[in-house]
């Protein structure tokens, strides 16, 4: 297991390095400097600004300077908001996005696994078709459509829930979390249905039934463990999706999180902010993928035995 972990970790390092390098040069290739669209700036002022942001150095020196800063965890200053560092802005948004993502994930897992297991218990009956059709609706209803629709119904027509903000009014976290989580609930439902169907036809489930275990225990104790491996493996990609989804959801509900900052930085052409956010989010995504792969491997007894066998 340790070897598996190490080899996956070693694979992740070059990926993160590629992301940093590619993003850095892409951003530097962007047409127009960050100060070009300001009002007329005196040449001396412009030169001083460029010196301050190290833009007067040759490209490769800029790159190594950036890597050196990055090694000590410094993402540099923001172009658009003088005096604020990218680190500061990121860490003010991180807790908000993390909380939103967590709620969305909980919604996705609770609803998704429940629906998937219920469907798998009686395949090709109403009990299967109804949740699975709903799941299809969830997949085909993108968050940027579901969000406004929920706002329209619950916020404007029924006036029962607040329609924007985060943590200011009680209940304002409900709609964003549902909006972000619903598509993933749908995917999780489909994955857990497929996984459970596969597992419930295995011999060891028949053994468990044969020894007289109540059906509920067969499903919970023996079924879920194997049936949910695909769901655990899906958590890595889902995390990347949740981050991307937070771009939209935080824009719709005006939530001051990472996603909204990223979209704003994109529109402001705040290049250091874009660069910093990309590097930060990408690293998070790569690490999360790693974690979900390792967890899925750990849950699979055959794979686990293989790794432990390799150790001894």
């Amino acid at each position, binding site marked *: 297991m340790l070897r598996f972990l190490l080899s996956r970790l070693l694979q992740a390092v070059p990926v993160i390095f590629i992301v940093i390098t590619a993003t850095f040069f892409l951003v530097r290739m962007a047409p127009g400097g960050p100060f070009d669209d300001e009002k007329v700036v005196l040449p001396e002022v412009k030169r001083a600004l460029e010196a301050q942001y190290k833009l007067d150095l040759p490209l490769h020196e800029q790159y190594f300077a950036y890597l050196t800063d990055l090694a000590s965890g410094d993402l540099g200053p923001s172009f658009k908001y003088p005096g604020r560092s990218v680190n500061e802005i990121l860490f003010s948004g991180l807790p908000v996005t993390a909380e939103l993502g967590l709620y969305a994930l909980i919604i996705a897992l609770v609803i998704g696994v429940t629906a998937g297991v219920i469907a798998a218990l009686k395949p090709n009956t109403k009990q299967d078709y109804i949740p699975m059709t709903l799941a299809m609706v969830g997949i085909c209803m993108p968050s940027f459509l579901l969000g406004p629709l929920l706002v329209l119904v619950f916020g404007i027509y029924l006036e029962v829930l607040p329609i924007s903000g985060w943590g200011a009014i009680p209940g304002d976290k409900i709609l964003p979390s549902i909006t972000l989580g619903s598509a993933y609930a749908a995917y999780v439902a489909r994955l857990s249905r497929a996984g459970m169907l596969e597992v419930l036809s295995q011999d060891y489930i028949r053994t468990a039934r044969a020894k007289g275990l109540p059906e509920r225990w067969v499903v919970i104790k023996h079924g879920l463990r194997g049936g949910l491996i695909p769901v655990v493996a899906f958590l890595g990609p889902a995390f990347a999706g949740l981050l991307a989804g937070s771009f939209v959801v935080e824009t719709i509900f005006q939530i001051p999180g990472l996603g909204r900052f990223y979209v704003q930085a994109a529109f402001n052409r705040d290049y250091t902010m874009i660069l910093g956010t990309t590097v930060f989010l990408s690293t998070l995504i790569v690490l999360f*993928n790693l974690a979900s792969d390792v967890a899925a491997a750990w849950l699979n007894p055959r794979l686990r035995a293989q790794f432990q066998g390799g150790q001894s």
Partner: protein
Amino acid sequence: MTAIDASSSQDDNVLAVAEKGSSLWHDAWIRLSKNRMALAGGLVLLFFIVIALLTPWIAPYSYETQDLDLGATPPSAAHWLGTDVFGRDLLTQIMYGGRVSLAVGFIATAVALLIGVTWGAIAGYLGGRVDAVMMRIVDMLYALPFMIFIVLLMVIFGRNVLLLFLAIGAVEWLTMARIMRSQVQSLRQQEFVEAAISLGLSTGAIIRRHVVPNALGPIIVYTTLTIPSVMLLEAFLSFLGLGIQPPQTSWGLLISYGAETMEEYPWLLIFPGLALTITLFSLNFLGDGLRDALDVRGSKD
């Protein structure tokens, strides 16, 4: 039996006595035609495609027509789906937007298909070290957070439709390459390929007659399921203002305008949203139906 060419007609005489075989495609068609949801999805999709192709001739108003005095009106006899704040006919807007959304979906998927199938077939067929290197590259690209990269590309190089096609296509080819490679790899070791080799068929003929037709099923299924995810990606970017730019429009862009004014004019959000959702629904049902019909497993979930 008309599809069989001259080279195997000799075998035909022998086989004709035995049971008349039914092809994989024939079986698949029978299974698909029993799946009502998939058939309905296919028909709806066909309907939308025909409308998109004919839009310049059948749209009720011209794309540029504005009527600022009229402003936003709910659905009426003159404007079936209502008008937007500039007095533009919403049905016309949705029809033109659908052309763009569907075009992005199909063209970007075609890009992905081309790169992925070629890459996967080469890796799978050559095997060995070439395969290892090629698939390691795919693994690495897989780990990259592409959604963020696409946003980055659109920010840096401007909101160019062509670039949007390429960027989306470049993301989606990875899974295609994996599927194709595993297909080619497993097919190469099958008995019927060995039999073909021992019969002295050339490599080209083996690939054309035996490998490609058998690898086609999963590719068709995955292609059908890639189109909706590409369309979703385009709509996502357009919603954020990073995709299709005015004066062009797409369903994502219409939804984004609709969301801004939904309090006063909810139809501007609901109708474009319905158009997108129905299309995605149809494509997904068709894809699922094809997967069951062609008996393909594990291509997406």
